[in-house]
């Protein structure tokens, strides 16, 4: 059926409009023909044909109008989809940038904390204590000593390491 439909769609829109007006004129013309005796017989033939053609033309005219209405809606929808795709890309870029920046901060924070402890262990504390008051410095040095004592005297028991590793497993 679609092949037939496709063939009919090849006809220009004006064809159906012309056919509609033509058939209406022909239909009305048959009433005039009835008053002309030699053509009276043609009036009876032309009238039903004109009527059928008028019906078909009206049907197709409606179909064309409906199609145009749908095409307009499709175009509007396509435009909306295009705009949405653009917005979607923008949103993705925004999210990606945000995550990348925050990840950098998180990584940097972890790195700084590990380095801080390493510097205390290695005794490279000049930079850390330079801006501290006497009181703060004393408290810091106590903490440093406490850490160094813990490293020397308190190795982590194996069971703690094992349990930590088990907890880190996803299974």
């Amino acid at each position, binding site marked *: 059926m679609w092949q037939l439909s496709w063939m*009919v769609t090849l006809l220009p829109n004006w064809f159906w409009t012309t056919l509609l007006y033509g058939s209406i004129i022909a239909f009305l013309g048959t009433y005039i023909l009835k008053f002309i005796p030699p053509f009276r017989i043609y009036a009876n033939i032309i009238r039903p044909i004109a009527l059928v053609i008028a019906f078909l033309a009206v049907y197709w005219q409606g179909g064309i109008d409906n199609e145009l209405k749908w095409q307009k809606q499709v175009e509007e929808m396509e435009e909306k989809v295009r705009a949405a795709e653009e917005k979607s890309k923008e949103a993705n*870029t925004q999210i990606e940038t945000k995550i990348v920046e925050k990840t950098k901060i998180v990584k940097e924070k972890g790195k700084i904390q*590990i380095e801080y402890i390493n510097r205390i262990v290695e005794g490279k504390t000049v930079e850390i204590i330079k801006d501290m008051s006497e009181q703060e410095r004393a408290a810091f040095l106590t903490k440093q000593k406490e850490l160094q004592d813990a490293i020397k005297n308190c190795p*982590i028991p194996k069971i703690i390491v094992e349990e930590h590793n088990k907890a880190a497993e996803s299974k």
Partner: protein
Amino acid sequence: MKILTLLLSFLLIGCTTTVPVVAKFPDTTKTLTEKCAPLKKIESENVSIVDLHKTVVENYTQYYECSLKVDGWNEWYKQQSEIFNKVSK
């Protein structure tokens, strides 16, 4: 009869359909599709408190990196659904 069949089939032609417009499922970002790295274990034999601290801090970092992805997915969903809902209105 032939003419009637032809006329009927001609009338059926009017039942044409319009191809609907389909919105493409939105793409996501590269970072969001990356898997979260597994948590780190303590591998050395004589483990000091510093090694333990290092591993714990690294694992916290992993957690925050992964939670950023989860938050990212939530934001992605929220924004994309808002965009999609505007199209279908």
